[in-house]
């Protein structure tokens, strides 16, 4: 009988404690998305999520790429999957290389950059746990031959509008969408992108990696008294082929990144694909 009373008392106390605990904020939703990245190839990916529980501080590279399904190695960077991120030193754009070390995670690889005048300098990446990344930024993943096709990106699903800073020259970015999208038909707000009429070589460009290597280049076309057939292409991304111009078609998978080339002289702007504030 005593035991029964004690048990009931304990249960009641536990229920009271539970009732007094404040509920956790349930608005945080963790996202986990698969991105196709074939073995033996370089794939440009982006993360459509924010870093989890970052308390207002920027997310870091190490947090956004799940190591699930990736190939690691104990000692040989060449035998492991690698991440390649674009950054700048004091004077130029450079790459940081990271490899997946078994049991330790992403480790930097010291590389050498050869300059046109024959000189070279070493590039030592900051730790992956210190390299800031945000939703909408892109980077390369270099898979070892024979690796499984999918990699996973993770983070907090954000309801906020994407705001990605675009500066002059090359930018590695993406559209932080969790669904496939198209350049021209998904309602993306391209405010700030610069076109130059038929001087397409003076327009901002987006370059999408092609399967098997190389890129498909899309130029932003803006009406500047164009020939009649091109009126329909105004404010669209177009591909220039040997037979003429055509609007960019097809969809880009969620998590796929791309190059954005902001020509020198066009200045910087903030890419807000979900609308301006």
């Amino acid at each position: 009988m005593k035991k029964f009373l004690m048990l009931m008392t304990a249960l009641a106390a536990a229920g009271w404690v539970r009732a007094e605990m404040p509920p956790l904020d349930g608005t945080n939703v963790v996202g986990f998305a698969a991105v196709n990245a074939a073995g033996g190839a370089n794939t440009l990916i982006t993360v459509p999520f924010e870093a989890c529980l970052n308390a207002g501080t920027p997310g870091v590279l190490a947090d956004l790429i799940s190591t699930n399904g990736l190939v690691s190695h104990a000692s040989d960077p060449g035998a492991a999957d690698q991440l390649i991120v674009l950054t700048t030193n004091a004077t130029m754009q450079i790459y940081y290389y990271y490899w997946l070390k078994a049991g330790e995670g992403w480790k930097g690889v010291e590389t050498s950059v050869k300059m046109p005048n024959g000189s070279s300098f070493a590039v030592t990446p900051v730790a992956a746990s210190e390299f800031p990344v945000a939703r909408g930024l892109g980077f390369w993943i270099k898979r070892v031959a024979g690796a499984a096709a999918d990699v996973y990106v993770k983070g907090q699903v954000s309801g906020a509008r994407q705001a990605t800073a675009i500066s002059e020259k090359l930018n590695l970015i993406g559209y932080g969408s969790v669904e496939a999208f198209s350049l021209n038909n998904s309602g993306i707000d391209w405010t700030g992108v610069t076109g130059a009429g038929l001087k397409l070589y003076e327009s901002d460009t987006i370059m999408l990696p092609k399967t098997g290597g190389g890129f498909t280049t899309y130029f932003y076309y803006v009406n500047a008294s164009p020939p009649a057939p091109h009126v329909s292409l105004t404010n669209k991304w177009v591909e220039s082929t040997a037979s003429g111009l055509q609007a960019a078609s097809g969809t880009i998978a969620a998590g796929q990144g791309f190059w954005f080339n902001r020509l020198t002289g066009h200045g910087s702007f903030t890419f807000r694909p979900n609308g301006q504030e």
Partner: protein
Amino acid sequence: MKKRVLASFLLFFCGVLTSQAVVIGWSTETAPVGSASAILVYVSDGSTPVFTGGSLTTGQQIGDTITSGAIFVPYIMPQDTQDTTTRNSGTYYVVVFDDSENYVVSNNSLAFNDGPSISTGETDPITAYYLFTFNQNPEWIPVPEPGTAMLLVAGAAVAALRRRKRA
């Protein structure tokens, strides 16, 4: 002997497979009046492209022929032209044709190793399109037809024979 031939074939074949393709980004804002089509031409020895007998005898066409749909004088829309052969020297020119089989060669050329306009890496794209320049109203050069070329060759042979007989 057979083994040696087979090995040579395999080496050649593997060499072809592993040769590094490059993509040349180019355009023009000075295409001549009357431009109807264009081609990118690679010349290995620094000379300019020449047509004889209806075809290129100095230089090699790279990629597809650019048709009138991509030409809005004075602009030729930007092209990403792939060269599947690895080059260690030489230059690229653009040759423009009119509707009457006449041609004109660009005033300038692009070196085989021009950084911003030639993409060689798997991760690095073209960052600037090379602009070939032309005179707006150039002196068009007729592309010699094969028949014309044959007549020239035959004429030269006859002249040589006559010279021999006289001697």
